[in-house]
């Protein structure tokens, strides 16, 4: 049987220490890029965007899409970031739009949306808050979220 006094003391300590454990959160942040970045894959299989100061390797992406880590060498990827902070990546001949969430020193795939059965011709992204618009020659534009295609589904 725990004495009542001890119980009150424990509750008081917990009440005092809990707020200091919770992290500060800034709500309604907007990470959206006003315009996509066409990024050319370098000889080292990486892409870099100077304006937004972001760079990442694309060999795993090439492996996932084309089963060939060097498939993207010299090609141009389209990259855009939506208002939530997810990176949307695709390119010519891609059947998917890859969506990545930023983590410490990494981009972690959160979704891969199938947008074409034959491969995109010359895709481009537009920021259309709260969506990302995917346009491609010869097909209707599609609106994407970080997990799904909400309009223009095939």
């Amino acid at each position, binding site marked *: 049987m725990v004495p009542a006094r001890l119980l009150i003391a424990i509750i008081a300590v917990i009440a005092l220490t809990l707020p200091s454990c919770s992290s500060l959160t800034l709500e309604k942040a907007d990470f959206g890029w*006003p*315009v996509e970045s066409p990024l050319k894959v370098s000889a080292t299989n990486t892409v870099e965007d100077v304006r937004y100061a972001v760079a990442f390797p694309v060999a795993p992406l090439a492996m996932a899409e084309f089963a060939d880590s060097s498939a993207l060498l010299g090609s141009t990827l389209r990259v855009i970031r939506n208002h939530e902070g997810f990176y949307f990546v695709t390119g010519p001949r891609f059947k998917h739009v890859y969506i990545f969430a930023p983590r410490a020193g990494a981009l972690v795939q959160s979704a891969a949306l199938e947008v074409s059965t034959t491969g995109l011709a010359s895709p481009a992204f*537009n920021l259309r808050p709260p969506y990302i618009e995917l346009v491609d020659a*010869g*097909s*209707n534009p599609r609106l994407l979220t970080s997990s799904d295609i909400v309009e223009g589904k095939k």
Partner: protein
Amino acid sequence: MHRPILSALVLALVFSSPALTASAQESDFATKRNFESRATALTARIDAAITTAQLDSLKNEIDVLELDFEQHTAFLDKALYPETFQSRMKGIRDLHARTRVRVGTIQSQGTRIAEMEGAIQTLTYRLDTLSAQRDRLYAELVQNKTNTMALRETLRRLQNMLQTQDKLMFALVDSIFMPYGKDLATMSDVQRDALSTTMISNNLITRVYNIAADNMHFLGATELQGKDFAPLLDHYRQFEGRWRGLSEKIRAVSIAAQSPHADSALSRSRGGTIIQASRFPTVAQTLQVDSLLGEWNTRLRMNFWSAIEREFSSRQIQLTPFSDAPGFSASIRTYVQSLHNSGDDPTLFVEEVWKGRIDKEWRDGLTREGMLGKEEYAALDKLVSELARTRIDMKFVLYIGITGVVVLVLWWLLARKPKAPAKA
């Protein structure tokens, strides 16, 4: 009946739909790139415009560009960061306004340049004619060496010719530079090219160099007399002043151009010295002329002082050697002092040399600024005159004394009353 028409319409719709879809969907990136490429192309065309008519047409294109992309203002403001759509359009309009002012200036200058071209042609023709005349006169000079009168006449004509040549030369310089106004440092590339073309086609620097060389050559052509030097000194000073003005202009334009003068050709001057003809006269070329002018000045002064020295030495008056104005002044003062101390007769020095030769023949030259100057000449003249006056005063006293004695004797002889004969 209507079936074929309906089928055709359906087919047309089917075939045109991808095109409609494609035109309807444009990526924001393409919009941005389209705007940037059109703006850049328009900027380049404005910058290259050379007539006001072109600029009027380009102004319409600016309006069209703004109209075409106005609907994307909000997007372009973000996409063009740190610029905005409005700031980019303002930049283009500002460039258009600046170019319009520049083209207007060039067009008005073009009219003046056309007017001046006739004058330049006439002047260059007259300069070329003078060169032939100069050669004839030098030949005459050699022929007339034994005939003093003819030699003097040829020298006078040669001197006149050289002065005319200078005047024509600098009239040519004025004609070339006048259309471009005073502010040469801010002239445009087009104007600079036009100016350099005119200067090169008229061999401007080479002409200046050759004329300076002619003037220097003249100094060694014959033995000059005292009165010849004053106009020669004036002539040099005028030439040097005008050249300084021209070289400053050339430097101003050269520095503004700041372009490498790689496409240089060589032209050889009359005296054998190489003058480099490049896209624009370089500072090095102006330095070559500066150097020649320095040589001309040295030779002129050397001839002047050595000719004066000969005036004294030919009459067995040994002065301390001198080669410039302070040396001459010191030498005369020393000699006057020595005459004072020795009590020798100064008549030869004062009357024959100073008054007879220096004051008559050389005063004009000696009183020029940069030589003795008027004040120093007056001081020396006074010093020498006092030397003579001292002697004259002594004689004057002697004459008065003798006259006094004569008067006394006469008075004694005439005023003495004859003694009355003794009364018987």
